[in-house]
């Protein structure tokens, strides 16, 4: 079972009445990035739009930069720039060293000192952990990306057309 959305905590975008896609993803995972790109296409193509939430599932054993990247996205969220940072992190997936994360914060016009302090702070990591634990608690998230459509795990492929078909059901 997908852990229910918490609108005060989850990163959500799109109209509230639209069908919901939740992605558990990892910023260093090429497939998570691909899935996000496909979801963006679905957002553009579906007339009524899509409600989309992203949850962190950094695979720290195989992706050394994944956790720091998730933390950076959360630190950006503290300055209301989650989605911009999210986009940037996937776009620059191969450049996720600490100094590079700092550059991205500057690029987005964030208060870099604040970003740096938030990025390594306990609250940001607790927020990431909350997503990881919700994925594990679902019993469905074994890797990334794992997508849920309207609360049910999506076992098919995640190209835009397949997602559109699944949303139409």
């Amino acid at each position: 079972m997908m852990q229910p959305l918490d609108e005060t905590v989850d990163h959500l975008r799109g109209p509230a009445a639209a069908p919901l896609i939740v992605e558990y993803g990892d910023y260093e995972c090429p497939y998570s990035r691909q899935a996000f790109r496909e979801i963006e296409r679905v957002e553009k193509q579906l007339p009524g739009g899509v409600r989309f939430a992203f949850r962190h599932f950094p695979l720290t054993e195989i992706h050394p930069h994944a956790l720091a990247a998730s933390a950076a996205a959360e630190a950006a969220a503290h300055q209301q720039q989650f989605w911009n940072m999210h986009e940037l992190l996937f776009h620059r997936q191969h450049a996720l060293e600490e100094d590079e994360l700092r550059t991205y914060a500057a690029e987005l016009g964030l208060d870099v000192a604040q970003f740096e302090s938030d990025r390594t702070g306990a609250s940001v990591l607790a927020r990431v952990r909350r997503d990881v634990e919700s994925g594990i608690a679902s019993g469905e998230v074994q890797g990334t990306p794992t997508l849920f459509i309207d609360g049910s795990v999506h076992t098919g492929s995640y190209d835009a057309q397949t997602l559109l078909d699944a949303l139409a059901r």
Partner: protein
Amino acid sequence: MSASGSHADSARADLEFGIAVVPATEDLDRLRALVRVADEAPLDLVGIQDYAYQHHFLDTWSLIPTLLAYTTRIALFTDVANLPLRPPAVMAKAAASLDVLSGGRFELGLGAGAFPNIAASMGGPRRTAGESVEALEEAIDVIRMMWSREREVSFDGRYYTLDGARPGPQPAHPIGIWVGAFRPRMMRLVARKADGWLPSLGVLTRAELRAGNEQIDAAAAEAGREPRSIRRIINVQGLIGDGPAPPRSSLPVGYLAGSRSPAPRAGGVRRSPGWSPTALTRSCSGPSSPHRIRSSCSQARSCRTSSRIADSLRLRLRRDRCDRPQASWAGRPKRSKSAANLARSTGSSG
């Protein structure tokens, strides 16, 4: 469960999952109920073994059409059809007919006949192991000729002949010929001529399974065939269910009970030692072609569990995602390593 309706065709093409039901005459209601549940689950395949000389079994070729008639999406296959007891041209016609009648839901598992003396007891030919392989090879040629669009076909083999036979009807879809094979010579035949390899875990060990896959890959490449084009199907024997394993003696005739030793638990699913989902994933991963797995279900609940495991395996075998290393199946009992790492990095012990 939520899996229904969520299968994209592309995922199905990667991995299919099914059940075997035993064609026991005395247990028909249960058999029909199981097939219906499998159809609705939805699983992909139902295999029916073909042991004509088992006096308490129904004839497989008579049973399959009745099951096709009241299912809508699941495919049925002979697991595996006994060649010595049926002329291949007639078998081809029966297979094509079932495929047409069911809208393309029949596949042909085919075997050379494991017990020559028993085949002979019903009037079949008594063949040595070597002769059986030769006869099977001829039979595959004959079957394909009978599925062709030729006006007339002739074949002059040592075991089978056709003399101006008229092929038809053509199958509704390209029926797979999946050969039950265990010995190297049969493996080479599979690699040369068959559409799939259909061994059984339990008859083969996992190491032998791996070796067999490699033999087929190598022989296929030698024969100029893409190894991936040869389907790999595994019969898995064991009990899948949520409760404690019932004693063997309490199971209906012919149903498979798995190991008698207490099975380890993972995520609420009792698994037979050796055939855990993790072991299955390992067996199915690797360079060979996509696999089909069929497990033995003795209860409707087991079918639903199989469906859940099928989803889990489908996800884990995908090549378009990153996986947690050594993820525990179903993930509930243990903290994941990633969560543990996170806890460490935040200094939390919770």
